[in-house]
Structure formats: structure tokens, C-alpha cells
């Protein structure tokens, strides 16, 4: 029996992207909300709560991109050339917000500017990622092994909807992270933000979910055709349950569960996206098997991933354990 390495690789890439989305999601979310926090202690605290982990978080994006090139080279080329503008916008935005972590402390005279770079860069990166998602879901024009569309094809009402939705959802992750990590005035503000952003995220999920089945017959058949709907129904049902639990826990003053429940909602959305897209890597045109790299390359890389990825996961988990608890304006307490 031969194992289908393509499935394994699809799983590895999806895992890397999911880890990226939830990890960089909360620190991008804090960036998005950053300018609503009071100058001084509150902003410093918010920044410090993510400072030790943001770089590690962002490295998952490199792993996602590098992994896609290695495992599905055809898809890597197609997707990145089809979504040229939003990808480039995301990269430039990440440059801005990445150096802001460093520069805002080095150059107090221009801290206002670097704060703006941090929050503007975070917002643009989040919206770009959402646009990329929407543009992929609605499908890209492919002829042979090349992208065959124009350079504005990605821009549609649907991709704008997903762009805004991802930014809102990231902001929700960021606000619940702050509820968990901070105290006092900042925590109170974060809790209020989380309440409204929770509602907005749910509205965004509903909007995207309603729009998606009408993008293509394949999506419609998976989500709205009897009896297929029975198989997928647990996903929206669980989203509703998680949302109710989120609202109650947040109201009741819980500190950790709102963040964890938000993670659960992200996971469910990811599963939903997976159901829509599988077995395609470029929805509607290229399946994972059509895009897969050579078997020898799959095996060669699996050695590297098998040896190193467990260490990275362990180390990441340990680092988050080290930084558990509340953060102050001067960083985490030992």
C-alpha cells in the first residue's frame, strides 16, 4: 500500500496556515486596535503582550509560503501571480508593522509615526489576507498551467467582504487576547471592544457563509443540497453554540475562555473553508494532486518536516507557557 503523500502535504500546509492565522491573527488584531488605546502605558502594555511572540508567529507565514512552493509548486505560482496586488500589499504592510516593533522604542521622537505604521500596517495586512481568501474562493482564471486573468480580477464585492471580515475577526482575536493578558482600564476597554467585535464577527461569518454557496455550483451542492447538508450541518451549529458561549462567558467576566472560544470559532471557520475547497488547492481549477510536486521531493521534505516541526511546535508551546499570565506596562512578570 502506498501512502498518499499529497494528502499528508496538504494537511501540513493547512496546519501551517491555520497556526499562522490564529497566531499572527491576534497580534495583527492588536495592531488594528492599537490606535484606540491611550498613548503611553496602555499602548506599551498592548505592545509588550505580543512582543515576545510576534516574530515567531510571522515565521509561520514563511513556512506556509515556502511549504506551498515546495509541495504544490504549480499552485504557488498560480495563486501568487493571480493575487499579485493583495499579496504585495500584504508584504509591504508586514514590513512596516514588523520594524515598528523595533523602531518605536529606538526613536521616541517619532513614536507617533511608528505607532501609525504599526496599526496601519496591521490593518492593511489583515484586509489583504482576507481579500486573498475571498479571491481564491471565488476562483481564478487558469489556462494550461498559467494564470489567465487580469490584474484586477481579485477585486470583487465578495473579496472586499472577506477582506473586511478577516480584519474584524483578527481584531476580535486581539481584543480577547488583551482581556486575557491585561488588567485595569485596558482590560475593560478590551472587553467592551470584544463584545462589539464578537457581534461583528458573527455577522461577517453569516454574510460570508450566505454568499459562498452562490459563488459556484460545487459550493452550493456541498452546503445546501439534501442530504449533503446533514454531513456539514454540525459546523454552523457548533459556530452558533460557540458564539452563545462566547457572549455569556465574556459578560460573566471570564478572562481566558473568550479567547479560547474565539480560537474555536476560527477553527470551525477553517473546517468550513476546508469543506468548501477540498480537494482543490486553487478552487475550481487545480486539485491538490494536479498541483503536487514530485514524489521524491515529497519524501525528501517529509524527513525535514518530521524531524524539525515537532521541535518547533514544542518550543512554541513552551514559549507561550513561559509567557502565561498578565503583562504589565514593563512586560511580563517572571
Amino acid at each position, binding site marked *: 500500500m502506498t501512502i498518499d503523500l499529497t494528502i499528508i502535504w496538504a494537511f501540513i500546509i493547512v496546519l501551517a496556515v491555520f497556526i499562522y492565522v490564529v497566531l499572527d491573527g491576534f497580534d495583527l488584531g492588536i495592531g488594528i486596535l492599537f490606535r484606540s488605546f491611550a498613548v503611553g502605558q496602555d499602548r506599551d502594555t498592548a505592545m509588550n503582550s505580543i512582543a*515576545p511572540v510576534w516574530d515567531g508567529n510571522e515565521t509561520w507565514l514563511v513556512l506556509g509560503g515556502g511549504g506551498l512552493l*515546495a509541495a504544490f509548486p504549480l499552485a*504557488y505560482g498560480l495563486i*501568487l501571480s493571480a493575487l499579485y496586488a493583495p499579496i504585495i500589499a500584504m508584504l509591504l504592510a508586514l514590513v512596516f508593522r*514588523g520594524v515598528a516593533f523595533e523602531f518605536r522604542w529606538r*526613536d521616541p521622537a517619532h513614536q507617533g509615526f511608528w505607532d501609525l505604521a504599526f496599526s496601519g500596517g496591521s490593518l492593511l495586512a489583515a484586509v489583504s489576507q482576507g481579500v486573498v481568501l475571498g479571491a481564491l474562493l471565488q476562483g481564478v482564471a487558469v489556462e494550461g498551467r498559467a494564470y489567465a486573468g487580469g490584474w484586477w480580477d481579485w477585486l470583487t464585492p465578495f473579496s472586499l467582504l472577506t477582506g473586511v471580515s478577516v480584519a474584524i475577526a483578527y481584531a476580535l482575536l486581539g481584543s480577547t487576547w488583551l482581556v486575557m493578558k491585561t488588567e485595569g482600564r485596558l482590560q475593560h476597554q478590551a472587553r467592551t471592544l470584544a463584545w462589539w467585535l464578537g457581534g461583528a464577527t458573527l455577522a461577517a461569518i453569516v454574510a460570508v457563509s450566505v454568499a459562498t454557496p452562490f459563488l459556484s455550483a460545487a459550493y452550493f451542492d456541498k452546503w445546501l443540497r439534501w442530504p449533503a447538508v446533514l454531513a456539514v450541518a454540525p459546523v454552523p451549529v457548533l459556530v452558533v453554540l460557540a458564539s452563545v458561549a462566547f457572549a455569556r462567558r465574556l459578560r460573566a467576566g471570564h478572562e481566558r475562555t473568550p479567547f479560547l472560544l474565539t480560537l474555536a470559532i476560527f477553527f470551525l471557520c477553517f473546517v468550513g473553508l476546508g469543506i468548501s475547497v477540498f480537494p482543490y488547492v486553487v478552487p475550481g481549477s487545480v486539485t491538490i494532486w494536479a498541483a503536487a510536486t514530485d514524489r521524491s*521531493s515529497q519524501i525528501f521534505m517529509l524527513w*525535514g518536516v518530521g524531524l524539525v516541526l515537532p521541535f518547533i511546535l514544542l518550543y512554541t508551546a513552551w514559549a507561550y507557557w513561559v509567557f502565561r499570565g498578565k503583562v504589565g506596562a514593563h512586560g511580563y512578570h517572571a
Partner: protein
Amino acid sequence: MMFDLLDPLLLARIQFAFTVSFHFLFPAITIGLASYLAVLEGLWLKTGREDYMNLFRYWIKIFALVFAMGVVSGIVMSYQFGTNWAVFSDKAGPIIGPLMAYEVLTAFFLEAGFLGVMLFGMNRVGKRLHFTATLMVALGTFVSAFWILSVNSWMQTPTGYAMNANGQFISAGSWLAIIFNPSFPYRLVHTLSAAYLTTAFLVGGVGAWHLLKDRTNPRARLMFSMAMWMAAIVAPLQIVLGDLHGLNTLEHQPVKVMAMEGHYQSHPEGAPLVLFGIPNSAEGRVDYAVEIPRLSSLILKHDLNAPLAGLDTVPAADHPPVGVVFWSFRVMVGLGFLMAGLGLLSLWARVKGRLYEWKGLHRFALAMGPSGLVAVLAGWITTEVGRQPWTIHGLMRTAESASPLAAPAVAASLVAFVVVYFAVFGAGVLYILKLMAKAPQVQEPEPPHIPMRTAGTTPAVALRPVVLATK
């Protein structure tokens, strides 16, 4: 519209050249600087001399900033292959993808594991574990360079590949044959040595600057002396390594050497070395050439009378842009000889006991401070432009590699990259220069404790109270 007049292929090439050149400067510094920091800490552990630790603290602040800029410019690189070179990514992905994935995995692991400890962990983990972390970061930069240069070398001298039904390059069986392709060992050694020289001249330049202001500062003396040892030993060695790399290129990519030498014509009875001149590709000759007869044959073939073929033996469609290659090669070689010259001068000054007194030497070293960065870029341009018109030498043309792009999209993003890079990295360079302008202190302070950035997923912040307690 004006943008439409421009060729998207050319714009894509300019964009890639711009982003990769900018990015390359940062690892060129961090590879050498990581090793220098390891040497400083090792010497401190061995001798107990505090100034080694003061220098360590001085340079690690600069290292952290350069590393941060290397990270963010590196994220861009991992996507530029797909945005601008989709066809190349598709066809070469099964070969270069795994090598680059290994780079991400290994560099990620070593960075996430050890950089934070190196930056903030001295008081937390103890001296020996900290030294291990420093060594691991240095090893990480080396491993990173290993994989990236393997990919690049494979594009220059592809071996070990087969083609599949989709027209993709795949492994013919042995990955070792792909990784250790013929130009890789030469390129690796030459490039690493260049990175070490880049650091040595930066350190030497900073040391010289502080010696010019105060020649009694023992830390300025120490860093200047160490840098000049490197210059005296590694710069001449680099000329030898460069020569070996050149001979390897002659064997596998003779057309590149023809462009470097400006040999439009074949020379059946010994080729001259063109020192300077203006390559005139339209007429197929070097105008105003200053030549030394037969010397090129002596250098390349170790025989004054050895025949050397010229570009006239190669179809015009396969010529690289001669002017760029010709000039960038001369910039690199010229700087290499200036570096060796400074190294030898410093030896002489050392023998005469005037290493710390001779202001002329210090001014020379100060002027040579950025020389490594310029030489590294010039060398990179020589080898990359010299590979043209191919992305995979002899197998896949650059014109066949690009994404199906619209010129306005590439032009607009190119402008955005230029504006953002100059603004962001310009500010970063300014902050680095500010750090360099401060003289190294007797009690050089720890890195500032507030920003816990490039540390990756590290215990950096947990270490802060310890750092604060020591202030």
C-alpha cells in the same frame, strides 16, 4: 499610459533584483557578525577580559537591528518567486522548493530556539549555555546560507535532475547530486568568506572612527586590531578563493567569464586582460580598452599562449548584458585588492607599533567600512546578471520564467517597494549609524530591555526583570 511602454519582464527583473539586493545586505552582515560575537564571547570566557564582553554588548545591539530587517525583507523574498516568477516556480519547484523549505525549517528552528537567549539570556541561563546559544545562532546563519546558496548554485550549474511529463525539473534520484552541484562548494566558500570580510571591515571602520576621536579607548583598539587581523588574513585568502571560483565558472559557465573579461573576440594565441574600457556590445568590442597582453590566458589557463574563446563563438541570443557584468566584476575585484592592501598596511603598522597611532591608516579603514557590502553586491550582480539570459543555466530562459504579468501591476508594485524599502530600511540604517557613532563604554549597557522583538518565540520578556535588576 506610460507604464504600458515598459516591458513587464524587465520590470519584474528589476523588482526582484531590488528586493533581493536589499535583503542580501542584511544576512551578509549577520552571518559574519554572529561569528564575530561568538569569537568575542569565547575569548571573554577564556581570558576573562571584560572588554571582550563590552564589545559583545556593543555589537549585539547592532546585530539585533540588522537581524530584524533581515527577517522582514526575507518574508518578501519567500513570496517574490511566486508573484513574479510563477512559471519558474512551477517548473523548478520540485527541485528548489525542498531546498528552500529546509532553509526555512532549519533557520526557523535555530532562530526561534536560540536568538532570544543570545540577546537577553546571559543572566538567566548562565555563561556556558549562553555561549552555546551564540554558537547556535552563528551555526543557524551558516545553515541558512548553505541552503540558499545551494539553490542558487543549482540554478547556475544544474545537475542531478530529470524532466517529468509536465515539463518540471525533478530529482533524478540522488538529492546529494542536486545539493552539491558543481559550483556550490566554490560559491559557498567564496560567499561566506565575503560575509566575514563584510563584517570585518564594518567593525574595522567603526573601530577606526572611534580611534580617530580617542586613540586611547581600549575597546576601540581591540575591535580595530581584531578587524585588521581579519583583513590581513582573509582578504588575501579571498582573492585566492575568488580565483578558484572563477576557474570553476570558466569550466561550467564560460560565457559568463567572457562577459566578465570583456572578451567579445576569440583569442587563439593568448587573450589579453582588459583592465578598463567601455564594453560596446553593438560593435562587439571594448572601446578605449587598457589591456595587458596574454595575462587573461595566464590567469584563466595558467599558460600565456592558451587560446580563449570569445562571445563571437556564442549566439547573440545567449549573451548576458556584458556592460553590467564587466563593471560589477571590476568593482568587486578592485575592492578586493583594496581590502587586501589595507590588511597588509595594517600588518606593517602593527610591526612598526603604530597600529593605533597612524591616522592615515584609520582614515583608510573608515573609508573602507562599507566596502564589504559594496563588494558583496557587486559580486552578486556579476554572478546573477552573468547567468542571463537564463534562470536555470542552459535549460530555462528568464523570458520563459516570468508570471503572466501586466506591466502597470509590476511597475506600481516596484515603485511601492522602492519607496517603502528606502523609508523603512533608511530609518533602520540611521538607527544603526547612531549606535555605531557611540563609543564602546567601559560598562557597555545591555541591549535595551523594552523591545523584545526578533527574539522569535523566546523567553526574552521573562528575562527582563533579571536585566532590570542588574541596572
